[in-house]
């Protein structure tokens, strides 16, 4: 079923949800507020994966942009003493987009398994660089991120300010994502998955569509990484490790490619379940994830999100 349900205007439910999320800090503990912010920031990376997944391309290397964004913030804060988010965030986006544009030229020649493997290899290259070049990157110790400031102001409650910053940017990313998915390019990406020959015979370029998606995807993933760097206050090479990419892929597949909101909702669910599952039984977390993923693959390949929306839709 083609995902024609995407419209540029946000559905009412989403607006209500954001309103609720906006007032949450009044009621909930700092830890939960932090988790939500973390989940939303990572949700941007998941959306990045989803943009490509729509085209049938699975990126097992999105941790690359996640790490680029995070380390941009890390370098600025740690090596240059610049904690100003209004400088670091746009820079993170721009650098991620540039890297995506360059690597995209190589990657868009590939599809399917090779695209997945190559994207993985590229992220692992960054990982090895981050580990080995200790003087530059802090090696396995990573870099601490201190001195968060917004518009020149160093907030007394940085966690709270970061929370709202993430919220605002999430709304922006969702808006951009929704417009993208509803645009001709967004639909062309879906077409890429089904028939590239027909695309060429319409005079359009599948490679260019994929490249455009890849750049947008890289940019928002970089933004997500940058926000995570501020939230956690630390960056380390694990951010680029392929297991990190695997997490994003997991949430993307679970949420499905049908909606811009699924990555964020899925990400919140993921972070919360992970948080409590790890406390409860540290050696069954991955097992549970794996079983869940298998269930989705076998019974609901479009993802759980379609399941939820289908349950709510009226029967015809």
């Amino acid at each position: 079923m083609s995902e024609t349900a995407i419209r540029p205007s946000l559905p009412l439910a989403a607006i209500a949800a954001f309103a609720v999320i906006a007032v949450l800090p009044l009621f909930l503990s700092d830890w939960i507020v932090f988790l939500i912010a973390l989940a939303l920031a990572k949700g941007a990376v998941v959306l990045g994966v989803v943009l490509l997944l729509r085209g049938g391309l699975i990126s097992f290397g999105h941790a690359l942009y996640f790490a680029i964004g995070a380390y941009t913030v890390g370098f600025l804060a740690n090596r240059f003493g610049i904690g100003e988010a209004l400088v670091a965030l746009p820079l993170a986006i721009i650098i991620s987009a540039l890297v995506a544009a360059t690597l995209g030229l190589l990657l868009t020649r590939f599809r399917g398994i090779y695209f997945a493997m190559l994207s993985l290899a590229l992220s692992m290259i960054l990982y090895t660089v981050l580990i080995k070049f200790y003087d530059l990157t802090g090696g396995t110790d990573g870099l601490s991120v201190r001195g968060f400031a917004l518009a020149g102001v160093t907030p007394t409650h940085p966690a709270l300010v970061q929370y709202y910053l993430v919220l605002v940017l999430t709304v922006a990313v969702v808006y951009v994502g929704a417009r993208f998915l509803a645009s001709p390019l967004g639909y062309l990406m879906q077409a890429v998955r089904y028939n590239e020959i027909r695309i060429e015979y319409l005079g359009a370029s599948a490679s260019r569509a994929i490249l455009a998606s890849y750049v947008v995807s890289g940019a928002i993933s970089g933004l997500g990484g940058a926000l995570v760097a501020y939230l956690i206050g630390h960056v380390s090479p694990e951010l680029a490790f392929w297991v990190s990419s695997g997490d994003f892929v997991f949430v993307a597949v679970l949420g499905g490619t049908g909606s811009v909101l699924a990555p964020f909702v899925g990400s919140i669910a993921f972070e919360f379940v992970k948080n409590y599952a790890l406390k409860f039984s540290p050696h069954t977390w991955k097992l549970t994830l794996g079983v869940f993923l298998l269930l989705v693959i076998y019974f609901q390949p479009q993802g759980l999100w379609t399941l939820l929306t289908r349950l709510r839709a009226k029967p015809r």
Partner: protein
Amino acid sequence: MNILPIILIDGITFASWLFLVSAGITFIFGVLRILNVAHGSLYAIGAYLGATFILQFAGQEQHGWVTLLLLLLAATVVGLTLGPLIERLFLRRVYGEDEVIGLLTTFALFLILEDVVRLIWGIEPYLVEGPFRLFGRVRIAGIAFAGYPFLLTIVAIVAGLLLWFVIYHTSFGRQVTCVINDREMAGALGINVPRIDLMAFALGTFLAALGGAFTAPMMSVEPGMGVSVIVLAFAVVGIGGLGSIGGAALGCIIVGIARAAAVQLFPEIELFVIYALMVAVLLWRPQGLFGAIELRKI
């Protein structure tokens, strides 16, 4: 000190280590068209089971050649039990789907097996140095090398030769080749494709477990050992071309030598070199050195 023999020998032993796992992955892809992310976990299970067998049956001293037999036994057990189990229960359902679905399925299996390993064997490392000590040290070109890695090389070469023999000189091998070239046609010709699938996956599993089992004496067997090996194997298989065992062998040698050279000359880029090679090869030949291109019929 002359580094050339060090690079060559270090490279070959690294290549041998990697070959068993990579050969399994590329073989399974050729037959089932699924890239097995869980292959690293199978490697780890082979290592754990091998270590367990040695600790249980070879006594405190872990003496003698029987330890090697135990390792082989462990790999066989994994190949004959876990292989068919996984293929039947989990993979069979996704044949014919998008290759990406197969990738996700094996990724899910990887997640499951990572925890299963921890649940069964715990998180403390296992040390089984008995077999390693068996081979002492060897002097080549005036340099002392550990003897055990050469065993690994022999195992890899023997496995490679056996694989080559099986594929080109047995009826099973001919049937496998048929299935690799055209699944539908193979079925139409009367080949029992499901049985070939099962046996192929079992064989691939055995190879991975063999690699793991014979690696166990060389390093501490601990959780997460499968995670690092799998990305290296992907790099090798990407270089060699998916589905080509010869390609995997060549890829292993290239990667092994390049890494060994890096370790001696530019240690910072040791890991980097492997992935950079993969990117370079794919830039030049998108399907890998020996991979096949497919053209769609309209």
